[in-house]
């Protein structure tokens, strides 16, 4: 038993808290795996300090946090590379400590110090942290923690831009199909944030990487996995039909191979997928400047398409009326295309 006056006193100021966290995280390196007891003790120390940090950042349910302390702690965590330590040590921490960390991370990133988001800036100059978080989707134990931290980062356009253009971005196409639904759906939700949060960033990215991106995306849309098909189709509507991406959309609807994908999805056995596919298919058909190849495909398949569309109904209230109206227009347009001379079919 130790006497209380031998124990270091509980850190109180933001500087002390930041230092205590850094020291206790660094101490984890010194302990070897063989020294189980020592490691356990070191982890306990980290957990204790995280509790103090959390209390300082969000209050304890009874008292509100002191904003000045919050912003000072954010500053201190950047100054001493505390943020990097937090990320790198996450995998060896215990269950509750990880959750505290995620919670604190979210508050720290949003913290403004002298008009700048110092923690976001810190991440911006330490991009490897973002790569680390992305790759962690492969580690089931920490995937959900890292996913939440990533989404906090993606709120900042510059950080989202980095991830989109990084080599690790392609990994998302794999992560969204992981067998664990909880991990896969979390990865999907991050993927969605990346493609929808910042219009201009996304539009620039899609313009520069059009072919690679849509090649990969086609694989999602044609995946044998129902959840992947349904979610990726819905997401496509979410970003493709948004104003900043209108030039991307105009390019997309000229391509016969994408039209074919939509026609496949119109025939899907899931009604939800059929309806979502219709909302993209209709743009191909309604395009006043349809290329010849698109017209040919529509004309060749007009009977099947008309029948398919006639049997399709959205099935509820106001949405239904609009859907029916659009459907009629699209069926008419396909009819018109079919009657065009010189299509050679």
């Amino acid at each position, binding site marked *: 038993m130790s006497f209380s006056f031998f124990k270091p006193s509980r850190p109180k100021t933001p500087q002390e808290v930041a230092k205590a966290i850094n020291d206790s995280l660094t101490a984890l390196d010194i302990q070897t795996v063989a020294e189980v007891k020592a490691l356990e003790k070191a982890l306990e120390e980290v957990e204790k300090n995280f509790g103090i940090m959390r209390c300082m950042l969000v209050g304890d349910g009874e008292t509100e946090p002191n904003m000045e302390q919050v912003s000072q702690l954010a500053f201190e965590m950047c100054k001493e590379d505390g943020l990097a330590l937090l990320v790198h040590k996450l995998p060896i921490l215990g269950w509750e400590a990880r*959750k505290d960390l995620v919670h604190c991370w979210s508050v720290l990133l949003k913290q403004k110090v002298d008009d700048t988001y110092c923690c976001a800036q810190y991440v911006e100059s330490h991009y490897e942290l973002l790569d680390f978080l992305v790759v962690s989707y492969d580690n089931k134990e920490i995937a959900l923690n890292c996913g939440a931290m990533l989404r906090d980062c993606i709120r900042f356009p510059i950080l989202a831009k980095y991830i989109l253009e990084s080599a690790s971005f392609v990994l998302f196409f794999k992560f969204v199909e992981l067998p*664990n639904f*909880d991990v896969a759906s979390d990865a999907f939700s991050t993927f969605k944030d990346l493609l929808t949060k910042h219009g201009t960033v996304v539009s620039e990215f899609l313009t520069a990487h059009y072919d690679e991106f849509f090649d990969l995306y086609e694989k999602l849309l044609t995946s044998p996995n*129902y959840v992947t098909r349904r979610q990726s189709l819905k997401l496509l509507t979410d970003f493709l039909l948004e104003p900043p991406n209108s030039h991307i959309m105009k390019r997309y609807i000229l391509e016969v191979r994408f039209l074919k994908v939509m026609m496949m999805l119109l025939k899907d056995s899931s009604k939800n997928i059929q309806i979502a596919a219709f909302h993209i298919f209709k743009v191909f058909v309604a395009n006043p400047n349809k290329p010849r190849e698109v017209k040919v495909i529509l004309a060749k398949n007009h009977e099947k398409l008309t029948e398919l569309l006639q049997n399709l109904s959205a099935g509820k209230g106001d949405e239904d009326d609009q859907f029916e109206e659009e459907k009629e227009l699209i069926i008419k347009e396909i009819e018109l295309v079919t009657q065009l001379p010189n299509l050679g079919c």
Partner: protein
Amino acid sequence: MEFLSPKKKFPLNHRDYTLYEEVGQGVSATVYRALCIPLDETVAIKVIDLEKCNNDMDMIRREVQTMILLDHPNLLKAHCSFTATRSLWIVMPYMAAGSCLHIMKSAHPDGFDEHSIATLLHGVLKALAYLHSHGHIHRDVKAGNILVNSKGAVKLADFGVSASLFDSGNRLHSRKTFVGTPCWMAPEVMQQLHGYDFKADIWSFGITALELAHGHAPFSKYPPMKVLLMTLQNAPPGLDYERDKRFSKSFKEIVAACLVKDPKKRPTAEKLVKHRFFKHARSKEFIVRTILDGLCPLGDRFRMLKKKEAAFFAQNEDVYGDKEHLSQQEYIRGISAWNFNLEDLK
């Protein structure tokens, strides 16, 4: 020694499980007793038909994540989740005695004794304190979501509507959505005026205490719209039946403390855990002896209740107009996927 053994790995393929009988049902999900073949362990599997979930799957993702990330002896945790064609399977521990609602309906129609209630509620409260400290509001606390296993352990379940306060914005922001089951719903949730916070769960907890004491929630025989109006207009319900005299003063105290209309005046879960009422709490073994003894298997009870329900609706077909029919049915079952049109109320 269990502590040292490596964490069990539940397989992520539906072929590794055998589904047995139905033990629960919701709007778009069915719960089965099942066997995990490679581990030779009985589990419960919630099978959600994703095709019936019209909107995007964010709600479901959150429910599953909550069940995976929270870790407390009084919360029902998910072992794993995966998809099998169009359905989502969530594998959970099997709670052989079922929910307190089911137990009451089949063996204790007038509610439980005070020691059992204290024991059950103590577990629920510890779960709520943990949830709240992690920034979650449960939003659907009721006897139907309090599960008991064969050893008498109590676990709060169903995070289908639970919301995370931390998801948007960093601090303890109030939520502004309308979910829950009307009988258990706090006045501020119904009013949708200022948003609500953890304290909404404390109200529902108080209603649940009454439910366990009487065998049904207050106002449960009225249609949902009427419940809304009664909760808003009447004085809070309490332990004031004639036969409630058997209950202790501390029980009445705790119920009254939770059922205060002003959420600010309700105590926190953390504070309530220490209430003297819980001196009446007993062990798991006590629960097994007093309320689980002689119960027939969950699957059989579930089938019987389903039959009773069907008969009830067949009998009362003409009582419930076409328009309200479906929601009325779901309401009586205690299913919580409610969409009120509040404009109708004003």
